[in-house]
């Protein structure tokens, strides 16, 4: 191999001294910003456009270097070319001159396009100054890099999402109720038929109320809060008759619920689309990881010396971990059968243990919920104790979510996976634990609501204990949210600050063992996804919950920023920006999927309460829709029935499957083509080197060719062939060489 490559090595540092190599088009693709050298490359530089390599994303393909582009509409914008500014200016003026030769229509199109582009840029600049927290996030990026930045921009996204959901809920459900008395509208309220199901004893406090009772009510949503717009039970309007049309509130309520779930889905998917594509491309576990770290590892945004030092050490750590992983992979490949059996058995046992731990946690949540519900039925004994019983499910969930990650990180060390897989697997377990605990809470609530003393429930739910069960569920969600917020604040104040004080001022063994707090991104992300899931589930029962959630995340941003800046150092295990964005959105999607289940079940399955809420006249909440549809005009009704019929559903399913198979087949075909092209590329490289070596050998033997000129008649064919091949651009084949004698 060396003899072939010796052509490329030059004795001194600098551009290759072989003029043949300099003239290859691939060398010309990289223009150095040098003053014109003697090799005459200046002329080329001035008139040629840069080759863009193999990327096919440009519309302008297949352009030969010597030709001027005929149509200006296919050109790349001037500023995306790798030239000096003077050259770009010249290019721009050249283009403007070219445009003058065009017809007036094309000229007009060009100028409008340019001015529109400029307008768009100015508009975007204005919008970006309006972006929330731009300055704060800039500071964080400079100090901690892009990994933590992605957490904070995720938080900002959630604030916006919650605000939009609140606006949706407010404008379609609350606003009509509020403005109806002020306009000429006529509101009809729900009719209570006086049966036992529609009895709703008022829960507002009577008589002399002690002050701390108000605080307890505020924290648990009972008492004076229960009969406000905060909860489902207060919406008693059946329809609002405006002069022109009738606004049916139950329908609006239901449709807004479906709409906000849909909106969240679409927004999240849109945000994750780019990350999704990238993650699909990287289908292997450690694809190209060394190159990524060397060439895209250093974060050019870092301006802080401490951050730079930490980034360096984290890169070092990453590289060492990768090398370690290579060694482990080798070790795994070398495992004997006996060892494999042992490992699998151990993994099975540990997984069963994990399942047992999860089951134990879920059972304790279940029991805590039931106990809490039962104790709420009895009159309160003591203010503090009462609050504790109310918050018992939240306390148990928080404790479980605190202990189980520690346990999981301990267990996974014995399972002997590769480090990257360990992190991911632990994370998945924690995600499952967090989100499933909400589900268990709701399930235990549901079992309480639908279990009656006499066996079957006359109203479909336990109307004695839960005259308005939706408000009750709303209260539980409200409590979860408040408690989550309190915990975030309390952990910051009571755990992280003292830790920082101990580590800074105390020089004991405890300080060294604790170490300075690291901003653990995965756990923080799980925390806010948990809060968001509560919000999604709870908005159906507690329409003002998104507003509370917006406020909560707004404050959490400042709390987290403060703790980051004052207490934390960046994580030694770095979290890559690209994959982290994708990871956050995937976890959020899992949360959304989990949130849809209880909402769907309660809309479609559980009978809504007869004593309160907008759906008094229907058995389940979903019934509003069929009723409304039956009142629509005939054509529209037919169309909607057709959409919901089996024929349509089956054919839609079949078509979707076909489309999916087609796309998968296409992807497979592309992959095969990519592999083939890669082989071809390697072969072409070898060919090129071989040919250049031959040419240069031929170049180096001018002396011998003198003697061979006598054979020129015989070898004239091959001579001219060789000459024609080498003649363009002044190759230094001064004399025709008889290559036949030198093979």
């Amino acid at each position: 191999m060396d003899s072939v490559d010796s052509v490329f090595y030059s004795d001194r540092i600098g551009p290759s001294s072989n003029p043949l190599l300099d003239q290859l088009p691939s060398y010309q693709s990289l223009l150095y910003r040098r003053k014109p050298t003697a090799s005459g490359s200046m002329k080329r530089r001035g008139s040629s456009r840069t080759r863009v390599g193999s990327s096919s994303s440009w519309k302008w393909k297949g352009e030969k270097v010597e030709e001027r582009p005929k149509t200006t509409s296919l050109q790349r914008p001037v500023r995306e070319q790798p030239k000096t500014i003077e050259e770009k200016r010249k290019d721009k003026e050249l283009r403007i001159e070219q445009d003058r030769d065009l017809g007036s229509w094309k000229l007009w199109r060009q100028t409008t396009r340019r001015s529109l582009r400029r307008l768009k840029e100015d508009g975007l600049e204005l919008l970006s100054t309006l972006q929330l927290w731009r300055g704060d996030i800039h500071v964080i990026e400079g100090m901690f890099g892009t990994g933590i930045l992605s957490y904070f921009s995720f938080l900002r996204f959630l604030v916006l999402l919650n605000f939009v959901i609140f606006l949706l809920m407010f404008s379609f459900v609350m606003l009509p109720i509020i403005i109806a008395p002020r306009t000429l509208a006529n509101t009809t309220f729900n009719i209570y038929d006086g049966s036992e199901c529609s009895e709703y004893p008022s829960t507002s406090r009577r008589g002399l109320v002690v002050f701390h009772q108000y605080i307890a009510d505020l924290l648990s949503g009972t008492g004076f809060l229960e009969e406000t717009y905060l909860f489902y039970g207060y919406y008693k309007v059946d329809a609002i008759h405006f002069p022109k049309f009738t606004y049916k509130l139950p329908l609006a309520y239901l449709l807004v619920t479906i709409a906000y779930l849909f909106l969240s889905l679409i927004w999240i998917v849109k945000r994750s689309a780019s990350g999704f594509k990238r993650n699909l491309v990287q289908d292997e576990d450690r694809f190209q990881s060394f190159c990524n770290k060397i060439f895209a590892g250093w974060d050019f945004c870092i301006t802080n010396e401490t951050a730079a030092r930490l980034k360096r050490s984290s890169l070092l750590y990453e590289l060492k971990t990768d090398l370690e992983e290579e060694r482990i992979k080798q070790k795994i490949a070398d495992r004997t059968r006996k060892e494999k059996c042992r490992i699998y058995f151990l993994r099975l046992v540990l997984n069963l243990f994990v399942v047992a731990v999860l089951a134990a946690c879920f059972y304790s949540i279940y029991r805590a919920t039931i106990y809490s519900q039962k104790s709420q039925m009895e009159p309160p004994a003591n203010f503090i104790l009462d609050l504790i019983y109310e918050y018992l499910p939240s306390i148990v969930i928080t404790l479980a979510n605190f202990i189980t990650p520690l346990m999981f990180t301990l267990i996974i060390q014995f399972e002997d996976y590769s480090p990257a897989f360990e992190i991911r697997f632990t994370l998945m377990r924690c995600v499952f634990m967090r989100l499933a605990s909400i589900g268990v809470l709701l399930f235990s609530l549901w079992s309480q609501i639908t279990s009656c003393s006499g066996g079957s429930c006359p109203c479909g739910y336990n109307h004695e204990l839960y005259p308005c069960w939706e408000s009750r569920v709303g209260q539980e969600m409200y409590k979860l949210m408040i408690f989550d917020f309190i915990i975030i604040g309390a952990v910051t104040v009571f755990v992280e600050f003292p830790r920082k004080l101990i580590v800074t001022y105390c020089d004991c063994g405890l300080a060294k063992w604790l170490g300075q707090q690291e901003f653990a991104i995965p756990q923080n992300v799980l925390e806010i996804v948990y809060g968001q899931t509560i919000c999604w589930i709870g908005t159906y029962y507690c329409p003002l919950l998104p507003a509370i959630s917006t406020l909560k995340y707004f404050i959490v941003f400042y709390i987290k920023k403060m703790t980051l800046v004052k207490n934390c150092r960046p994580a030694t295990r770095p979290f890559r920006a690209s994959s982290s964005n994708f990871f956050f959105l995937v976890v959020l999607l899992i949360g959304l999927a989990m949130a849809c289940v209880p909402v769907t079940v309660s809309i479609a399955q559980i009978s809504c309460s007869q004593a309160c809420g907008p759906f008094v006249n229907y058995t389940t909440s979903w019934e509003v829709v069929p009723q409304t549809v039956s009142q629509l005009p005939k054509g529209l009704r037919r169309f909607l029935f057709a959409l919901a019929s089996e024929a349509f559903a089956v054919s839609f399913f079949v078509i979707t499957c076909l489309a999916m198979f087609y796309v998968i087949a296409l992807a497979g075909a592309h992959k095969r083509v990519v592999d083939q092209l890669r082989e071809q590329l390697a072969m072409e490289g070898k060919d090129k080197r071989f040919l250049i070596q031959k040419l240069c050998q031929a170049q180096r033997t001018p002396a011998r060719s003198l003697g061979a000129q006598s054979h020129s008649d015989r070898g004239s064919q091959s001579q001219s062939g060789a000459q024609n091949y080498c003649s363009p651009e002044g190759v230094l084949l001064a004399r025709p060489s008889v290559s036949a004698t030198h093979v």
Partner: protein
Amino acid sequence: MGNKQTIFTDEQLDAYQDCTFFTRKEILRLHGRYHELAPHLVPMDYTNDPDVKLPLALIVNMPELKENPFRSRIVESFSEDGEGNLSFNDFVDMFSVLSETAPRELKAIYAFKIYDFNTDNFLCKEDLEKTLNKLTREELTPEEVVLVCEKSIEEADLDGDSKLSFADFENMITRAPDFISTFHIRI
């Protein structure tokens, strides 16, 4: 404020806006930064295109570049003479390519130039070793350095010549998802 400035003519600002990824305000701000690097050298009035170049040593001490291990190479790649002396045009061009809105392909071209220490249009093993040593400040053992460089070349080299040409590099960088977000300087 924009109408009263006398640093650039309107045509100059237009040209800058078309040739870079900056807006007029940002160009003026960049001029301020350039000026404060050497107030006695850089004139406030650029309407007649003065030929002023700042040396490498002044530019690499900017706060945005100070902590960057590749700061000398970055400045050298954008200078006309390859020694790191930047005129204002080169200065603006540098930050334009490193800005958020520059496309990946353009960044890839310049990244290749930056990492190519011996400027031979190839990223050979020595270039990679120098890059790695600058990144880690030589805290890896020599064997580890060699191993990492070998693995990188193995991952990215397509035509089998055990060094990376621009085509190899670009192909690799399109599959590096972090590249766009890390190859970016905020100014």
